[in-house]
């Protein structure tokens, strides 16, 4: 028996919004510790890693580890049926081939349940090595979303360059070029609005705007976003979901052509 209850359905709704454009289907691996999801997009350029800890749920029970393959489009449709303030409960029997979502309105007057068929997915699990990153940048998530949106008008790819002075985002294309520089916030009044840069070595990497724009769909989950970069390895974009877990996106950089 698996059962997980969240007082506010909005978290789950937002999580789905944050992944459903990148992935069409994914496996939710549930065990004692909580729910995990790891999946690459179809073209194997990016990876989503989602963790929802058991203690973040209002009620969490998982007798046997189960893996539920879900069509994220369908799941998203179901979650759209829930009100933001509704309580949501996910339920599944041990060997079930369906999962049930129960939504209860705050005053308990309305209870709706939706059953969804599970899928059998053969997805590749990737081992992500522990990496010490040369640069980590923490900044307001809204600001990052804005930068990605603005720069994607100029070109398909964006250069992120992190130095002592700050972080620079740039793009260029047919209409011209664009550069956005952010300096470290001098005095931190509000932590949520701060730009904090930790750097061992300067790094410059190029990424596809399209994917970054997919990642920023997670903006509403967290006021801050953290970017981690090292030369020649994938970028990590992390959104911490308050009290329950995090969502991490990995994106392979664009590389210079070589003829070998």
């Amino acid at each position: 028996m698996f059962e997980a209850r969240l007082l506010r359905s909005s978290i789950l709704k937002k999580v789905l919004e944050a992944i459903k454009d990148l992935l069409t289907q994914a496996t939710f691996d549930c065990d004692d510790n909580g729910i995990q999801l790891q999946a690459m997009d179809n073209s194997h350029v990016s990876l989503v890693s989602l963790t929802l800890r058991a203690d973040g749920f209002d009620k969490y029970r998982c007798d046997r580890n189960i893996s539920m393959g879900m069509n994220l489009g369908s799941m998203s449709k179901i979650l759209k049926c829930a009100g933001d303030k509704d309580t949501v409960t996910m339920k599944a029997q041990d060997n079930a081939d369906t999962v049930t979502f129960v939504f209860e309105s705050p005053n308990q007057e309305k209870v709706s349940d939706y059953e969804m068929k599970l899928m059998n997915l053969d997805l590749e699990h990737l081992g992500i090595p522990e990496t010490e990153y040369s640069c980590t940048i923490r900044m307001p998530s809204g600001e990052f979303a804005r930068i990605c949106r603005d720069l994607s008008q100029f070109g398909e790819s964006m250069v992120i360059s992190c130095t002592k002075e700050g972080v620079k985002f740039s793009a260029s294309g047919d209409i011209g070029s664009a550069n956005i520089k952010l300096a470290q916030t001098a005095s931190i009044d509000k932590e949520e609005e701060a730009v904090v840069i930790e750097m061992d070595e300067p790094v410059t990497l190029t990424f596809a705007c399209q994917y970054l724009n997919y990642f920023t769909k997670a903006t509403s989950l967290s006021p801050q976003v953290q970017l981690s970069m090292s030369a020649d390895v994938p970028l990590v974009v992390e959104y911490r979901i308050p009290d329950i877990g995090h969502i991490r996106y990995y994106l392979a950089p664009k590389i210079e052509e070589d003829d070998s």
Partner: protein
Amino acid sequence: MGILGLSKLIADIAPMAVKETEIKNYFGRKVAIDASMSLYQFLIAVRSQGAQLTSVDGETTSHLMGTFYRTIRLIEDGIKPVYVFDGKPPDMKSHQLNKRAERREEAEKELQKATEAGDTASMDKFNRRLVKVTQQHGSEARQLLKLMGIPVVEAPCEAEAQCAELVKGGKVYAVATEDMDALTFGANVLLRHLTFSEARKMPVQEFHLDQVLRGLELEQTEFIDLCILLGCDYCGSIKGIGPKRAIELIKQHRSIEQVLHNIDTKKYTPPENWEYENARRLFQQPEVTEAKDVELKWSDPDEEGLVKFLCGDKQFNEERVRNGAKKLMKARTGTTQGRLDGFFKVLSTTPNPKRKAEEDKKSANKKAKTPGRGRKPK
């Protein structure tokens, strides 16, 4: 042509081994293309009102049209193609080649009949059957590819074998061909429909040899024997043994020798002087240039050269050719998107319990393999 009924057999017994994906998911991959196969496709498919495209003096140009535009399309999708041309056919193929020649003669006769009768539908049909990739087509395509900056590899013998060697040696990711031989030659990844027209919206089929072998529960040598039983280009097969019998027999007896020993040869007569051993050797040790001796180099396209070669007599539109050259150039200057699987290692592939259960049902004597994760199969 390739191995008779192998793709269907794989789809039936080892569906796990076949994946269908979009062409754009192959960005950044190097792919070896069997040139004669793709030229043949172009000669058949690239037509205008049923007739091949020709130059002023009636020389066919369909193959050039196809090679030019479809290669550009691959490159725009970020794929790096290598064309591999056939060398001399192996002696053992002569029988097969004779048969093909006979069939062509027949088709020619039929075509004459149809022309006399004025039956345009069958005229078209037999016309297509007469299509043959000639030396000249090959050399023109080579010249074009050189101008486009695409590497060309000359196989000493069979192109498929050479493609497979390139995959095995890690020079390229996959072989693109329609023939299933490449798997028999040991190429781990085979792509079908890669050079098909975009308009056909045909997904690319990806075959993985290791999964084929796992699905069929065979070793590579047993797989080769299976292919010979199914019918290959190099020798005959036993009459009356179809794909189903063939896989059963190989699974039971594990080699052609044992199969011959155990079946009633009166009922199923093997061909006279059956050279299956030689065919097997040909698949195991084909005549190829070693992958480490092959250098693949993509270079800038020669726009003026292309215009000179394709326009004029060959009646290509100059503007389109120049545009094509620009596209090739653009693809070279840009950066390529890296692949995540190049950075992170695949730890495990979640097996698919449900599909496996169906497989098990199909062949009841099959042993249960790794148990499904978590959920029990239905």
